[in-house]
């Protein structure tokens, strides 16, 4: 598996760079056979407006001559406001309906059956992991957990359409993308339990995964901060000359943050091959989208930035797959950002610190549970003879035992050595931190009975 971000140290971090590649280098990307129509912004606006106003038409010509607009703009004498709901709402692209029927055979993705089954199994595995870890948190064994209920198709469909070497930035509800790329249950458990085998050395709250091996940058709690970062990463990707893109996941709530605006604008103005993937799941904790924005979702904002966009049924794994594949081609071929707004529903609570019954009805949740991405794909698979109730039972058992095996391994595993509290603040430990580390060591040695020292790996056993 080709990786951009190699696992070796020091110079490896700069492995990305293929020096001196030209922006104009021809890139061959396999054409997708699906004919999705993206809401393409017209070329007059997507072309970079130069830093000098080059349209030097004379003032004798009765056309607007302002640097701030493109060349296609005209005067009007009508005092007409452009009302926000004049244009129809952006439609939701789908491939299969709620009964699992493919509506337009030309849209059925060219995916081998075993890949589709793999998607399904991973969705079920994720669902199983979520259910078990929710309970693990309730038992007090981990401090915190966030489920992915209802968004499994958004994860698998998009992840399957990307190249493993595409770099990904996420928010926090993208565990399925990790699973698709090969993040193991042990990796997830080690992170959730902050064991000494956690690659993050136990520094983050549960579910903040990250992995160099699978090119998914470690996630953080502040919302939307990854969006402008993804734009910078995509710019670097373009400079490297590699025919790859960066994908950035975020939610409907995060898209209200200033960082989202910054990210969109930078990606557009700087020609970044960046695939924005917005999981619009209807809620930001308790805040419904009706209180998050007044316009037509997030897709409607794209035109304002000069960005092409498509809205998809996020619960239809094929639609998500097709859209992501096509968007990726545009990103790489044309070195520009594309926004996918995946409409879905957050079936679970925001997190284990949330009780969503306090702000929404169980009827609403139940409705979406019945038409969940897993149910939808299950219906399709069964209809097409690829799956049946026996296989379902068998696989669910298998998934459960796999998760429990990883759980039993992680739950009593030792935490990292206590000295890991002080390392990695800088590339090398500065003198003042060395003094503080020594001071902490002395204190803990004197008061060892007051601290959970036995839960942590002894210093000399640390690798």
């Amino acid at each position, binding site marked *: 598996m080709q990786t951009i971000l190699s696992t070796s140290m020091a110079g490896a971090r700069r492995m990305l*760079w293929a020096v001196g590649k030209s922006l104009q280098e021809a890139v061959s990307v396999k054409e997708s056979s699906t004919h999705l129509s993206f809401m393409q912004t017209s070329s007059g606006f997507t072309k970079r407006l130069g830093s000098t106003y080059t349209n030097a038409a004379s003032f004798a010509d009765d056309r607007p001559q302002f640097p701030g607009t493109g060349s296609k703009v005209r005067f009007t004498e009508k005092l007409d406001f452009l009302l926000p709901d004049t244009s129809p709402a952006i439609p939701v692209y789908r491939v299969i309906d709620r009964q699992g029927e493919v509506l337009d055979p030309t849209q059925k993705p060219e995916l081998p059956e075993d890949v589709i089954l793999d998607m399904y199994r991973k969705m079920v595995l994720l669902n199983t992991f979520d259910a078990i870890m929710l309970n693990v948190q309730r038992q007090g064994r981990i401090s915190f957990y966030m489920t992915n209920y209802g968004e499994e198709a958004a994860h698998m469909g998009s992840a399957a359409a990307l190249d493993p070497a595409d770099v990904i930035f996420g928010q926090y509800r993208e565990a399925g993308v990790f699973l698709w790329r090969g993040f193991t249950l042990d990796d997830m458990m080690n992170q959730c339990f902050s064991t000494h085998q956690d690659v993050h050395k136990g520094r983050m709250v549960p579910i903040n995964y990250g992995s160099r091996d699978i090119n998914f940058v470690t996630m953080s709690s502040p919302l939307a901060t990854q969006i402008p970062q993804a734009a910078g990463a995509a*710019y670097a990707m373009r400079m490297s000359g590699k025919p790859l893109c960066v994908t950035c996941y975020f939610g409907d709530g995060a898209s209200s943050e200033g960082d989202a605006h910054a990210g969109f604008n930078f990606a557009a103005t700087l020609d970044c091959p960046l695939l924005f993937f917005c999981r619009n799941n209807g809620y930001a904790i308790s805040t419904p989208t009706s209180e998050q924005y007044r316009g037509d979702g997030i897709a409607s904002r794209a035109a304002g930035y000069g960005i092409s966009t498509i809205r998809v049924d996020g619960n239809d794994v094929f639609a998500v797959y097709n859209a992501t594949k096509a968007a990726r081609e545009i990103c790489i071929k044309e070195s520009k950002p594309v926004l996918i707004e995946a409409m879905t529903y957050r079936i679970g609570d925001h997190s284990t610190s949330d009780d969503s019954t306090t702000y929404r009805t169980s009827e609403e949740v139940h409705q979406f549970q019945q038409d969940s991405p897993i149910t939808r794909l299950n219906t399709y698979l069964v209809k097409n003879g690829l799956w049946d109730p026996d296989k379902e039972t068998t696989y669910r058992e298998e998934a459960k035992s796999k998760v429990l095996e990883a759980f039993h391994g992680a739950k009593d595993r030792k935490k990292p050595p206590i000295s890991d509290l002080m390392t990695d603040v800088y590339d090398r430990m500065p003198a003042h931190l060395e003094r503080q580390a020594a001071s902490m060591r002395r204190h803990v040695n004197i008061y060892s009975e007051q601290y959970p020292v036995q839960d942590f790996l002894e210093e000399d056993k640390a690798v």
Partner: protein
Amino acid sequence: MAVCGALVRSGRLSRPICGRTLSLIGSRPASVKRMASALSYVPETAPSDFGETTKMNLFQSINSAMDVALATDPTAVIFGEDVAFGGVFRCTVGLADKYGKDRVFNTPLCEQGIAGFGIGMAVMGATAIAEIQFADYIYPAFDQIVNEAAKYRYRSGNLFDCGRLTMRAPCGAVGHGALYHSQSPEAFFAHVPGIKVVIPRGPIQAKGLLLACIKDDNPCIFLEPKILYRAAVEHVPVGDFTLPLTSAEVVVEGKDVTMVAWGTQVQVLREVCNMAQEKLGVSCELIDLRTIMPWDSETVIKSVNKTGRLLVAHEAPLTGGFAAEIASTVQGECFLHLEAPVERVCGYDTPFPHIFEPFYMPDKWRCFEAVKKLINY
């Protein structure tokens, strides 16, 4: 209206005022003092092993540093508001022409975007040199700097980092900058584990320290005292050289009083050293901290143990300013050597004023008074 029409057509309404009107305004009154001319920069000499030198002011030396960076590191890029044409302080003049618009480019007007974008580039292994137009405008980027840049390496267990990021911003008083063109925000960033904060006192220092920041594998904030951009001129090495980070420099050796400052204030304290010697017969040891975070406490402690007296001065407001951190460390490490309490001469705890700047600044007279207090305690 006809008169208006004639004026419009002739362009008179949009021309600058004519000589006749100008003479009514009168010439510059003698009482108007140009604050910038009150600063006298004492040029320094570069170590001879840094090779051939040429005369440069501060913005030229910074330009030179970035020129070296882009020439030697093919992944290095410079971006920010207005950098393409040369920058509002001329720091990036000629670089877009030399290295191309893909490597030296304007961004939209959005500091949080500049910071985030820079972090993302650095995470991918590119050397990202971001410019914030004024340090006063760095605050929209505060979340990206504090919650992301500073914590990238730590939170990921050293799996990812943005060490290739350097953010530059002009800081400090300029004589007429007022609230939003004079700030010194170093203390905010000193409080964030994971980033480095560096402030040069002149052109040679600026080039060496900036190159050190660019090459350093930690996200760095490089604050440039804007009043020195033109006022500070010396012979700066033309080649590639670095000066060490987290290394304070004893600029003037002395035995009676230790004085610590950074940036422009080092020049102010140079004069105070002379005044103290001439008027009080007091020998002052002047230390330029250079790196605010992580700071070189060893050099300061060694000096205070020798002199027993410490003065720290900075333009930033007194409360919570970095002098507080230095004073606190020194009283802990040098307690028995101290002959007097630590003196801090700082901006007052007000926003940076416009017309009142001469009274606000920690000028040489306030610092001189503090030296007297230390000696007479």
